[in-house]
């Protein structure tokens, strides 16, 4: 019995790409810790949505994942954090950058070159990649994110949605195993946001990149996710499959933006109508409703 448990844990460990154990962090000069006892396991190839009220520590957790904490932000970090088989406190940010890409909230402040392709090449230049390889890699990243035609434009002349895609290309060009996106759509209109979600979904599905997406608009984002983490006041309060998390009572209490389809399911259940599954998007909800209706008639 013990043996089997042990074995399953090691298997789990090899499939996991991010592991944290009792992670606790306080910003320099901060009175209360911004992360409290965060223990997480994220599998390779997962699409994780990280959500929770603002100020709950999502950005802080993202900074831990690529080593900005503890290398850029000093302060007090306790517990263990292992990302792509590297113990974060023992490796510099540039070493981690080959494995973890971080896309920030504000597209304007993460692009600094005078042309899009130069910006996308920035990370590769820093790594000292030979020019021919770099050219190919930059073109590939531009094509994957659908901005190849914009390559010679100046980043600050683009729309927010285009800028954010450039930011994703910048990180993608370094071929990371993990991509962390901190509210990438909060400065965008719904259409721009939808486009970003599609690009991210593609990277996860086609390239197998592990995605960690911090997001409030769960309606649009949850379509692709297979893992949802909800934080509140620095703690992880819910961690599991999207359906289980969205359907739980505490998610509603914390004020997580539960997808409308799931809310419909809950309302129907209260009214005595049971759908077979919990839907996360409108197509699924439509299908399930149709099933129920035909069954009732028949």
């Amino acid at each position: 019995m013990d043996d089997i448990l042990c074995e399953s844990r090691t298997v789990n460990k090899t499939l996991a790409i991010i592991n944290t154990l009792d992670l606790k962090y306080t910003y320099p000069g901060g009175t209360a810790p911004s992360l409290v006892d965060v223990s997480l396991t994220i599998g390779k190839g997962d699409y994780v949505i990280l959500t929770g009220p603002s100020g709950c520590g999502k950005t802080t957790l993202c900074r831990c994942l690529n080593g900005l904490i503890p290398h850029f932000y000093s302060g007090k970090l306790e517990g263990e954090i292992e990302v792509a088989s590297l113990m974060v406190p023992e490796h510099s940010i540039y070493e981690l950058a080959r494995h973890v890409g971080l896309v920030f909230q504000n597209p304007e402040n993460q692009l600094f070159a005078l042309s899009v392709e130069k910006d996308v090449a920035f990370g590769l230049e820093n790594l000292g990649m030979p020019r021919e390889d770099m050219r190919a890699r930059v073109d590939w990243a531009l094509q994957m994110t659908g901005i190849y035609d914009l390559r010679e434009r100046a980043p600050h002349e683009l729309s927010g949605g285009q800028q954010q895609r450039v930011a994703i290309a910048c990180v993608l060009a370094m071929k990371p195993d993990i991509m962390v996106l901190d509210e990438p759509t909060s400065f965008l209109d719904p259409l721009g946001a939808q486009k970003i979600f599609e690009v991210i979904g593609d990277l996860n599905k086609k390239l197998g990149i592990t995605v960690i997406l911090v997001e409030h608009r769960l309606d649009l984002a949850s379509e692709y996710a297979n893992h949802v983490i909800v934080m509140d006041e620095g703690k992880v309060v819910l961690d599991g499959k999207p359906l289980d998390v969205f359907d739980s009572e505490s998610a509603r209490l914390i004020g997580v933006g539960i997808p409308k389809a799931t809310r419909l399911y809950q309302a129907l259940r209260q009214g005595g109508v049971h759908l077979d599954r919990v839907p996360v998007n409108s197509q699924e909800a439509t299908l399930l409703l149709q099933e129920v209706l035909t069954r009732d008639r028949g």
Partner: protein
Amino acid sequence: MSVFEGFRFRRVLSPIHQLDPRAKFFYVCTVFVIAVMFNQLMPLILLFLIQLPFVLAAGVQKEWIRSMKGASFLALMIFLFNFLFTYFYREYPTFPPSSSLMEYSLAMTLRFIVLVESFSIFFLTTSPDRLGLALEQSHIPYEFCFAFTTAVRFVPVLAEEAQTIMDAQKARGLELERGNFIKRIRNYIPILIPLIVSAIRRSLELAEAMESRAWGATNKRTNLYVLKIARGDYILAIISIGMLVLAVYVWLFMREQIPSLIPWITG
């Protein structure tokens, strides 16, 4: 500020835009040296005219004329200062001022105009991108080149932000144009402070983004682009050297024979 308007780069394709910034910079330096060597009108007028084909070939006449207009006020000041100071210092009780004084003041003004002209051609036809690249390939430490291109990149952003803050503060009743000189400068404090705070926050975010993209991973940094010296660059360099040699020759052996132009002007 219109002087600076005349220096703002606009993306156009022309043979002049294609030239290597280093070749163009060498040319600008040559013009600079020649302009400083002579204080007679004739060589400076020649120097002024020689550069016009560049303006036309680059197709930046409009911007160039704007920069010249912007410089005209300063040019007038330079003329007046030179003229009045030298007159009161050297010739005062005699009247009218001598024609050589006139020529000298005009020449000083024209020297300034020639300098503005050549720098304006340089900046109008050189993209900041290529300029940064040229700096890098001239073995200037990468940090400086990066700071340069980033500064260029963020100037319009900060300008826009300053405008937003100004509008916001005006909406709250701040009056910029009131009071004496000191008061007016003080009026700008409520604009400067938010601007500085936001610039600092912005620079922190930038630093985070740079770090996240492997800044400083190796000191053998590579570059997506490379500047190659082409035929046009050699031609420009040869023209520059030719001009310099000619100028030095004239300066050494014919300086005294350069005719004064004032009798022509005054008739």
